[in-house]
């Protein structure tokens, strides 16, 4: 078992956030999802020059497509495992519902935005999961269900039509195609910001590899959870709490980085509107 609380000379007290099991789940999902995106989008945008390049990278369409389906099925296996894992967790410990949205999250979104607009000086105190993380987790569940269901329906049409008429496959195909773009953009925008480009973590939040979060980060990201952990444990006296995390937040105050990112996301927003808003109506 990994220690719940450990100590690092450079970063002070370290809290276990992701177990090895969870990190492996994240990694498998990362690999299979990325593979699905790379091998799926060329089918959607079959006229694009980049699509032809990706196809030839795989040595032909048929290999690319098998790669798509195989990595899709692996993704679904990992997804199924996740629910076995949740059930086992609930059985061995207590079931945890910390990831589910609560009224508190709505309040915190509003307060976070107000804080960033300078309308209040009080930053909300997030618990184990803040609304950003909840949104992402729930989007992953929704997305995997949509992609998996529609993907399997398309790959096994003979079985599907035993239950539904064929136009239903066509409807799910439209969903597969749309959800793919939604999911890929959500990862590029939301996940890449929260895990990499956020000035708090730039260039990368390493928790997905180490599984650990420093006390300084906890105070910053999950103060309410930190308080709960500290209330729970009875060996507080033995902990060295005076070492500050010297590794994190290196760019948190870099106006250069923040300025570049503002430009980047502004351009992204313009691109989004130009690409998707149907002005031709």
């Amino acid at each position, binding site marked *: 078992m990994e220690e719940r609380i450990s100590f690092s000379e450079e970063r002070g007290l370290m809290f276990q956030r992701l177990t090895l099991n969870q990190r492996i789940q994240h990694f498998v999902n990362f690999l299979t999802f990325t593979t699905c995106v790379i091998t799926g989008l060329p089918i959607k945008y079959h006229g694009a020059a980049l699509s032809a390049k990706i196809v030839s990278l795989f040595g032909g369409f*048929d290999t690319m497509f098998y790669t798509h389906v195989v990595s899709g099925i692996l993704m679904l296996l990992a997804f199924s495992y996740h629910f076995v894992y949740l059930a086992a967790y609930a059985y061995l410990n207590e079931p945890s519902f910390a990831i589910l949205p609560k009224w508190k999250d709505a309040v915190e979104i509003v307060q976070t*935005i107000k804080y*960033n*607009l300078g309308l209040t000086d009080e930053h909300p105190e997030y618990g184990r999961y803040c609304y950003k993380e909840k949104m992402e987790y729930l989007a992953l569940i929704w997305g995997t269900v949509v992609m998996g269901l529609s993907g399997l329906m398309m790959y096994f049409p003979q079985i599907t039509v035993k239950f539904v008429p064929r136009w239903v496959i066509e409807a799910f195909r439209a969903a597969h195609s749309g959800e793919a773009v939604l999911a890929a953009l959500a990862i590029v925008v939301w996940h890449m910001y929260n895990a990499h480009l956020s000035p708090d973590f730039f260039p990368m939040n390493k928790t997905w590899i180490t599984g650990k979060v420093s006390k300084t980060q906890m105070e910053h990201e999950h103060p309410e959870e930190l308080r709960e952990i500290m209330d729970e444990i009875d060996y507080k006296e033995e902990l060295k709490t005076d070492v500050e995390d010297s590794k994190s937040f290196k760019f948190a105050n870099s106006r250069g980085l923040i300025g570049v990112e503002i430009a980047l*996301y502004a351009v992204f927003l313009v691109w*989004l509107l130009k690409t998707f808003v149907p002005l031709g109506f």
Partner: protein
Amino acid sequence: MLSLLFVFNGVLLAQDNIPAANKSCLTCHQREGFSTKHDGKEISLTVDPAVLADSVHKNNPCTTCHMNIQGFPHQDVVYGQELTVQVTKSCQMCHANVAKDYKASKHWKATKNGMADVSCNACHGEHNVQKLELTKQEEVKMCTQCHQGAILEGYKQSFHGKAVLLGSQESASCVDCHGAHKALGDEVAASPVSAKNKPATCAKCHQDAQANFAKGSEHLTLSAKDKNKIPYYISKAYIWLIILTIGFMLVHILIELFGKFRKAKKDDITIDVDDSDIDLN
């Protein structure tokens, strides 16, 4: 004079695999720029001996196809569509089996009535007749010289079409479903794409495809005008879902970055969480 011509022949026609009878035809017909006028149009009469020598028909006398030309000067010469029909009729002298299918087809009807040239030669070549070993991509290109509009558009949007256009060697091309010589139209019972035969045609690739599987349109375009609007509206709904979700994310990130930019003046870590109530010691 005649003997002089034969001497010439020997010099000019070194290709010994051309039947002797053809050599005399080629005496005139290999001359570049050899042409005649018919209905005010210039018609080339030149045949390249090299092309002829390369064809599967290289051992046939010219008169197997140009049956009515038996002497010199030629009698009853026909041109254009009339020639096409005449030559096509001569194909069946040897290719009786295929000709039976072809003669039942819409292609023959159109050719015979002068609506279009979809004769044997139109697909198989004229003097360069070859066994057609087309890739699926070449085949689609050939059929879509005439078959364009909604049919082509629907194919391009289907999985079969996307796959073939991206180079698949497994997905279905035109001929895989419609057959080559027996292009009948789906209203004819004998057609491979008639309501009766469709399940069997699908089952060539999709094992145990039942009637239900074959029910539905293949050349479907996503459009509000189509009898099936649901896939269309799902794809439209996804466009708006993408605009709203990703738009929200980008705006949220931008607000956060503006907040961080403003706070970055201060030297210390930015978020002012009141942690006086976190009991660390």
